[in-house]
């Protein structure tokens, strides 16, 4: 189930990036299409970074669970 949460997060990030259009200046050129669409590259790098960080968070939670499990085992 946690993996589906990861999917949800990634979709949310994509949704946010694609919907940055309110930031666009007046006129018909939107923010992401300015300066040769360079912000699309920034977006791609951010998605990769965010995805890897979210996966690290998931691994962190797994380790915390194991730590609790080991602690309980010792106290018994």
């Amino acid at each position: 189930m946690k993996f589906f949460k990861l999917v949800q997060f990634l979709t949310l990030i994509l949704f946010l990036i694609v919907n940055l259009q309110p930031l666009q200046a007046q006129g018909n050129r939107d923010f992401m299409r300015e300066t040769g669409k360079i912000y699309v590259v920034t977006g791609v790098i951010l998605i990769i970074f965010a995805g890897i960080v979210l996966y690290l968070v998931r691994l962190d939670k797994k380790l915390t669970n194991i730590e609790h499990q080991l602690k309980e085992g010792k106290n018994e």
Partner: protein
Amino acid sequence: MWWKTTSVILLIYAIVAGLLVPLKPGIDRVSPDSALTGSRLDMQIHGYNTWYSRGNTADIRVWLQYDSLRAVAGTDIRVISDTTLAVSFQLPTTLPDGGESDMLNLIVSHPTDGVSLLPSALEIEADTSASSSAANWTDNPVEKLHVVRDFSYPYRNVIYETIRNTYFHVPMWFALMFMFLVSVVYSIKYLTRPDETSDQKAVAFTETGLLFGLLGLTTGMLWAHYAWGKAWSNDIKQLMTAVALLVYAAYFILRASFDEPEKGARLAAVYNIFAFSSLVPLLYIVPRLFASLHPGATGNPAFGSQDLDNTMRLVFYPSIIGFILLGVWIANIRYRILRIQQLADDQD
């Protein structure tokens, strides 16, 4: 360890070089983009990343090209700004093949910017009432181009700076293939000699592969939104990739649905072999059978020599190695967590 350091160094290099190296000067658009034969055409050329005012204006040459032998040279070339060039053409009375309309390429040769080309820049229509013109298709062939060698990435219309995504989106798929390959090797190892280590490693590598797959698909959708117009256009490449990722997602559902871990591990290992053997057709064979928006055009929705030049290779290959090593690192951590989970469970 050395390979972890290597992965970080390669990825930093890929991000820095991938973002800082400039694009080659290119032609964004021209106005007007259509003309009649026999007419005098005053055209404005809008460049991208160009420095038209540098160098001697008299050295700038412009052609409207029909094919490798036939072209019309531009006259009265004026630099309006660094990104705008004004030029006039005297168009010949008829088209070379006598047809009704055709597309001409625009070539600009600049002493410091070098050569830039806009394919199908001008639509030319035959004007039957045109009075005879002095111009001829073969008078001024394209020759003596300014060759400028520099360290830069190719310029492509529509794609512009997003050509840099090659260093971040594409290595996701290389990393995915590597992770799934290692995973299936461990699955085969598990089937020939069952031991927990092989199974845990197979799980760790499959999960990391799936992570790269999701990242590849998401980054691809963002890129597609700005290059193809829509994030999801039901392109064959996108559909088949989604199917491949679902096949691998089912691997985890299959494992989780067994109460006895050993039975689950055995079946998952068998399933993994099937999943891997479906991966190659789904990602590399089926998309080639249909028209696709993905480069490079129909018949090869993967990678063509036109999409990668030697400058790009200097960043592209290190980036692939960097991401693969990072994946191995992540998978290794995932495996160790599975192992200590096992140890903790045994202790209880």
